[in-house]
């Protein structure tokens, strides 16, 4: 019980990624869909860190760091877009946001 197989970390990453995909496909709320994307990014980060351990290199950590930075930028812009959409029509259901122009 002193060590864990590397595959367990990768399987956990796959499960979390699939959960993110499920949220993205099944939910109808803009903000929840956005949070599912964050869940997928987190799952990929776990894979990066696990492979950094396996290859004994820090480069995987750097990539995970960059993914976090891009996620922060994406969250800022995406939430601003959601605010703008909400100003036009007071609903967060994605099915009502099927035309960008109106």
């Amino acid at each position, binding site marked *: 019980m002193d060590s*864990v197989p590397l595959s367990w970390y990768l399987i956990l990453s796959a499960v979390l990624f699939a959960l993110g995909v499920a949220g993205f496909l099944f939910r109808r709320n803009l903000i929840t869909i956005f949070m599912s994307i964050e*869940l997928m990014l987190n799952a990929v980060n776990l894979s990066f860190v696990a492979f950094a351990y396996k290859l004994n290199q820090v480069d995987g950590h750097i990539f995970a760091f960059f993914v976090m930075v891009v*996620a922060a930028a994406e969250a800022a812009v995406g939430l601003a877009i959601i605010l703008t959409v909400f100003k036009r029509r007071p609903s967060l259901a994605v099915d009502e946001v099927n035309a960008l122009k109106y």
Partner: protein
Amino acid sequence: MDALLFLIFAAIAVGCGISVVVQRHPITSAISLIGVMGALAVLYLLLGAEFLAAVQVVVYAGAIMVLFIFVIMLLNAGVEAPGGVSWPVRLLGLPLLVVLVGLLSFLIHRSFAGGEEVRFGAFTQGGPRQIGRLLFTDYLLPFEVTSVLILIAILGAVVLARKEID
């Protein structure tokens, strides 16, 4: 001890992840997502990524999720209306997803069977010193480009979210 810690926090991560997807209220989903991120930070520590674990808690669970919760409260988002998912998705979505996870797990298990064992403390290069050195030598250009990206994102968010003054 390592396996016990991994199992506990993996269970927390998966449970909170299911809660993110299943809960109908956005604020509950957001709180569950913070749970996932906290559990992942502990797993990063187990993998020897001390700096990333700290960044995960500060940037992800701190900054990004506060932004999410702030927007949810600003929009006064309530419980999601049921329905809206077409019947093929409702019928086939979950089984196909289970098949995908099963297939992925099988492939991962096959490729890495009897391979590397993760032992806490075996990987010692995940501290701020090593990350900083690599970030400012080999990855200097991506790092600087990231700062421009963040600047553009801030400007874009301000322009998008401002009130029109006529």
